[in-house]
């Protein structure tokens, strides 16, 4: 029997067993803050108690009068307390997701994916899930503004039209600046504006630009497009710094497709192999089978080397340049062996690099199989050159009027500062953003658009794939659709953007029949997909010129290089004021509420930095003439000689939540070869003495000295020895009978067990398809009204998330091999493990509660009753999985948590709360409930319809949010349910088919901490890596 000897560690402090880590890890709760930190002394407390008692006594004399206010005219399709669902579309610049909005009493409370869309296929991302809270942002504009003062729309229109007429008469230039516009109707509205003011040009730019890809495809195929990729057909995937699961291309779609190739289910034992060459440790890199560290300046050279390898195999001419890298030859050989099922992608925004990538894909026969050039996606239409030209024009005084259409270039464009300074000289400056952001502050007019959940709109994310957005709430403030504004300013009367969209669809897509039923169907589905003609492309790029350009443009520097990346939480910063994203642990660093510069372990050692338990120091990082001061964070796996910083921070006018966090690194982005370059060849790093503690959750809730937390094997190991999965680690307990008699831990029990006569809820989590994106965490927060506690409280280890994703680094060296460990730590492999209440059948928390506030249900749920809890916290101390969370404070209606807990402290924020879930108060324990409110609602629907509950009717929030289907939830008593089939469940005792004990015959199924015998209702499926050797 071969045992898994890997060592798993959450952070370097765990690997080195630093004293701080050990001290914290042994405690379920960090120490209470010292008394002087509290606002009140003990005497004050007693006084307050005395007052409180009398106040309660007085208040009890007469109950407050509560009002019940019905509608005057109740809408037919709206019943109070019954949720309505509307298909709609999430767009944020070029980011797109087809969604279903859940509304209660006319308020959107949750966003889920729409499975009818063939683009996003029901998937979501953390930012999509969080966007519902942005609707209720307290810092939104409440009315149009002129010169800093609120005004009415009539006044604003009058002033704007007068200005425009003046500019038009003088022949002045007008520019509409926006991020990528996906909506055909919006573009039509802009056309109307252009027709009226013919000097108008529409300039699009993207924060995370893909202009290089558009240019490269123009050169290679004659069409500036971003093709669709089909990762599901790829057996070998090579990514050179493309974070395609997070921020590159159609990331939700990519994730869906990628997961299909990583599914190690039975009959699907052919996993894809994924090579990643990158500098920063991205989430995509963490999912790769082989990951090679390169410097950002080497991206081009790696692509050249790959090109040459494949060209020699194909018998074509090679190009000059290239670099030798670990795994590169192997990757090339496998790509060639799997041509037709191979895919190479690169994250670089440089045309030359992308031309070579196109050349490689062309030789591999990817076009038509893994790349679909006839089906371009429109997520990134930004033109870096046009945007740079626009800023120069404004600086040169050549532009008389600028309309910023839902974009914020002063913050998120590298030349933003120059633009901001030059705006004063522009005669008409106007922003339609729904907030007074960095750009809006400098604009003379603010004409706020609706939030996307309040507005009609459409989108074309992919050729001939259309998507409708419908309002899920009446506009909260005095905002107006920007498209209506454009048309009003163009002199149209009786403008209604809804009618405009509808007519647009009628003229473009309606093919006869009854228009109303066509429209209703489109609205119901949210999407309309029309066939696309097949076409072929022929590659005609100049690879030699591209290779030469790479050689001239990129020189490896001896010092540090800077990599600028978009992370999976706040993304490009447009939603930075959303605390759901700020408090979401970043998938790799597990940091929250903070911005930092990442440094590799070796460089940290050279510079003399350690950061045990997130305690670190500031450093100044300079590149391209800009300097930012940020705390340093050591990132295992980061390439040596590289510093990495995320965009999306350093907002100054985002609002209360985001302002003042970190530094803006957009100005550090430069132009190389005609497009934005998200790296800098030379960066200076200067360590400062100032200390800082980053809020980081990585070592919170760590298990000490446990074995069966993670199970993973390589595909080759499993193929060689299929029994390995079952025997790999199977803990046994010795009995008193005789030394030879050993049983599995679950078989010995002091309890007689009980029967779940109706349902037995359970969950399976596939470690192979979990990419660690954390959309589930946000979904859980929104569904269950989980409080957001803010930076300070996270440092005190008191985050409230019911569901966390444990990110484990792993190394193959044995524990005592210090040198080996250190080496492995340079480029560790990663496992993501979503961890939530395991709903143990023999739950240790239940037995220690003195007031029976946590009990077991007849459906296998471990129930937590807040109103019964007295806050002894025994249950959390006794929970082996560390998934229970204690309310240290009253987080709702508490001014101290106004910045983080906006959903529970402001009147407008409270509109997002799920009315079916209690908002917990101070002093009670809480934890994952398996979304019991959704279970109860599903059961009630079945009962009302007098039928059995169908499998798939009840879903948990995390399951719905998961793009890869890594989470399966269902009734384990139902032998035809998806979960029963996946796990191959059978009752342990055939005489007790409804007994709690179920045996999962799927060889990959295991329980975390199986040795303690608590019999969880959550099963994990072993991770299988497609590697040949186990070494990292």
């Amino acid at each position: 029997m071969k045992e898994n000897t890997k060592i798993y560690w959450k952070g370097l402090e765990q690997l080195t067993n630093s004293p701080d880590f050990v001290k914290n890890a042994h405690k379920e709760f960090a120490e209470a803050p010292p008394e002087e930190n509290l606002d009140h002394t003990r005497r004050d407390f007693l006084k307050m108690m005395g007052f409180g008692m009398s106040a309660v006594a007085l208040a009890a004399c007469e109950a407050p009068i509560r009002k019940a206010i019905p509608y005057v005219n109740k809408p037919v399709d709206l019943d109070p307390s019954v949720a309505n669902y509307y298909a709609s579309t999430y767009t944020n610049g070029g980011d797109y997701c087809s969604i279903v909005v859940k509304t209660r009493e006319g308020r959107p409370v949750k966003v889920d994916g729409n499975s009818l869309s063939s683009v996003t296929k029901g998937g979501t991302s953390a930012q999509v899930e969080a966007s519902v809270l942005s609707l209720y942002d307290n810092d939104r504009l409440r009315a149009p503004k002129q010169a800093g003062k609120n005004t009415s729309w009539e006044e604003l229109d009058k002033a704007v039209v007068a200005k425009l007429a003046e500019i038009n008469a003088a022949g002045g230039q007008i520019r509409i600046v926006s991020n990528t516009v996906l909506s055909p109707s919006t573009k039509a509205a802009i056309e109307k504006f252009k027709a009226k003011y013919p000097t108008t040009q529409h300039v699009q730019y993207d924060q995370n630009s893909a202009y290089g890809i558009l240019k490269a495809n123009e050169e290679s195929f004659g069409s500036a497009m971003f093709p669709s990729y089909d990762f599901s057909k790829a057996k070998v995937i090579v990514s050179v710094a493309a974070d395609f699961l997070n921020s590159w291309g159609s990331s939700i779609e990519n994730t869906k497709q990628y997961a299909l190739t990583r599914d190690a289910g039975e009959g699907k034992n052919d996993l894809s192999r994924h090579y990643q060459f990158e500098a920063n440790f991205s989430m995509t890199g963490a999912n790769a089978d082989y990951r090679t560290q390169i410097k950002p300046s080497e991206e081009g050279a790696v692509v050249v080397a790959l090109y040459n390898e494949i060209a020699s195999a194909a018998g074509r001419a090679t190009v000059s340049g290239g670099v030798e890298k670990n795994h590169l030859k192997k990757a090339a050989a496998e790509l060639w062996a799997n041509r037709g099922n191979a895919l190479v992608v690169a994250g670089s925004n440089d045309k030359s690099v992308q031309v070579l990538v196109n050349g490689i894909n062309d030789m591999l026969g990817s076009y038509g199989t893994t790349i679909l050039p006839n089906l371009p996606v429109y997520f990134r239409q930004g033109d870096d050159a046009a945007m740079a030209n626009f800023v120069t024009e404004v600086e040169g005084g050549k532009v008389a009027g600028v309309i910023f259409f839902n974009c914020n270039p002063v913050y998120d464009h590298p030349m933003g500062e120059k633009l901001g300074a030059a705006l004063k000289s522009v005669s008409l400056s106007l922003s339609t953003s729904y907030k007074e952001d960095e750009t809006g502050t400098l604009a003379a007019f603010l004409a706020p658009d609706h939030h996307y959940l309040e507005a009609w709109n459409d989108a074309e994310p992919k050729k001939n794939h259309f998507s409708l957005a419908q309002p899920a709430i009446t506009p909260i403030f005095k905002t107006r659709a920007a498209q209506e504004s454009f048309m009003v300013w163009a002199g149209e009367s009786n403008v209604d953007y809804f009618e405009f969209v509808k007519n647009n669809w009628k003229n473009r897509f309606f093919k006869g029949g009854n228009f109303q039923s066509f429209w209703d169907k489109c609205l119901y589905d949210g999407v309309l997909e029309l066939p696309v003609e097949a076409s072929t492309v022929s590659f005609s790029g100049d690879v030699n010129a591209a290779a030469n350009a790479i050689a001239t443009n990129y020189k490896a520097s001896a010092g540090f290089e800077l990599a600028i990346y978009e992370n999976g939480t706040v993304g490009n910063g447009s939603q930075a004021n959303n605390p759901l994203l700020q408090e979401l642990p970043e998938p790799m660093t597990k940091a929250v509420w903070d911005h930092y510069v990442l440094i590799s372990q070796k460089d940290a050692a050279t510079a003399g930095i350690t950061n045990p338990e997130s305690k670190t120091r500031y450093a100044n990082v300079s590149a391209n003439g800009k300097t930012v001061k940020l705390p340093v964070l050591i990132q295992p796996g980061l390439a040596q000689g590289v510093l990495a910083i995320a965009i999306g921070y350093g907002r100054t006018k985002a609002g209360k939540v985001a302002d003042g966090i970190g530094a803006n690194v957009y100005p550090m982005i430069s132009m190389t070869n005609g497009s934005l370059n998200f790296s800098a060849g030379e960066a200076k790093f200067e360590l400062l003495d100032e200390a800082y503690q980053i809020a980081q959750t990585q070592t919170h809730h760590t298990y000490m000295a446990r074995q069966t937390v993670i199970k993973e094997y390589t595909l080759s190991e499993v193929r060689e020895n299929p029994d390995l999965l079952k025997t790999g680690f199977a803990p046994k307990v010795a009995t008193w009978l005789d030394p030879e008699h050993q049983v599995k831990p679950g078989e010995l029990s002091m309890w007689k067990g009980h029967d779940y006569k109706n349902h037995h809820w359970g969950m399976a989590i596939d470690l192979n398809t979990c990419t660690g994106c954390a959309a589930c965490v946000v979904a859980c927060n929104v569904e269950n009204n989980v409080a957001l506690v803010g930076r300070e409280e996270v440092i005190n280890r008191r985050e409230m998330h019911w569901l966390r994703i444990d990110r484990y680094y792993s190394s193959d060296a044995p524990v005592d091999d210090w040198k080996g460990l250190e080496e492995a730590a340079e480029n560790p492999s990663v496992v993501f493990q979503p961890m939530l209440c395991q709903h143990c059948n023999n739950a240790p928390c239940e037995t220690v509660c003195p007031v029976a506030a946590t009990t077991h249900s007849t459906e296998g749920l471990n129930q937590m009753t807040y109103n019964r809890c007295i806050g002894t916290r025994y249950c959390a101390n006794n929970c082996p999985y560390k998934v229970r969370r204690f309310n240290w404070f009253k987080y709702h209606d508490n001014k101290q948590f106004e910045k983080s807990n906006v959903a529970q402290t402001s009147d407008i924020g409270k509109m997002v709360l799920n009315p079916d879930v209690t908002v917990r108060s101070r002093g009670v324990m809480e934890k994952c409930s398996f979304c019991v409110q959704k279970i109860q609602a599903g059961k009630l629907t079945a009962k009302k319809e007098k039928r059995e509950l169908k499998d798939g009717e009840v879903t948990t929030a995390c399951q719905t949010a998961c793009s890869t289907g890594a989470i399966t939830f269902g009734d384990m008593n139902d032998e035809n349910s998806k979960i029963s089939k996946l796990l191959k469940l059978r009752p342990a005792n055939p005489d007790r088919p409804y007994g709690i004990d179920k045996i999962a015959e799927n060889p990959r199924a295991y329980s975390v901490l199986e040795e303690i015998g608590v019999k969880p209702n959550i099963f994990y499926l072993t991770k299988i890596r497609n590697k040949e050797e186990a070494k990292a």
Partner: protein
Amino acid sequence: MKRFLDQKGLSEEEKEIVHSPITTGSIVRSHGFTFIVVFLVAALGFKALINGLYSVGVQQGYAPKQPIAFSHKIHAGQYEIQCQYCHTGVTVGKSATIPSVNVCMNCHNQIKEGAAYDNNTPIQWVRIHNLPDLAYFNHAQHVKVGGIECQTCHGPIQEMDVVRQHSLLTMGWCIDCHRKTDVNSKGNAYYDKLVELHNKSSKSAMKVEDIGGLECAKCHY
């Protein structure tokens, strides 16, 4: 006892104690008596206090004056209008719902005195039945699935001119009913398996408590 003690050689003081008569006064003055009285008073007082505290927030009989003198006695009693005609949400969701004004105007279109309707301002009724936020109650479960009459909880509403809270609405009251009530499982396929399993192990009818009706997370989440 007295005689026995006399035979013993006791001192004068001790003899006095032995021979002192047991009078009402001596009983009243004795420590034991004081203790018993104090204990009883304290216990009763404590019980009253606990009962008092338990009734905090219990508003049985609460019958506030409403902005419109709407009489259920006339509508539900005299005219025998079905409850669901106005309270449309009762079979659909959690709230039974107070009818919107346009429902009133279905019949009252001749009278046309509805200021609320004309001005498009809703009527602000005083809420009578207040459950705490921590308790989840769903009307559809009880009325549509359970087939319970409105009067079971709301009392003789058809006789009330002014509606008052008929029941306690305490958790004990809920639990009590869940213990006593048979599940309305007839013809409802959802319960088939449960009934079958229940009948195997028991001869009595399946009560709500038999299928988890007393569990915390049925109402608290």
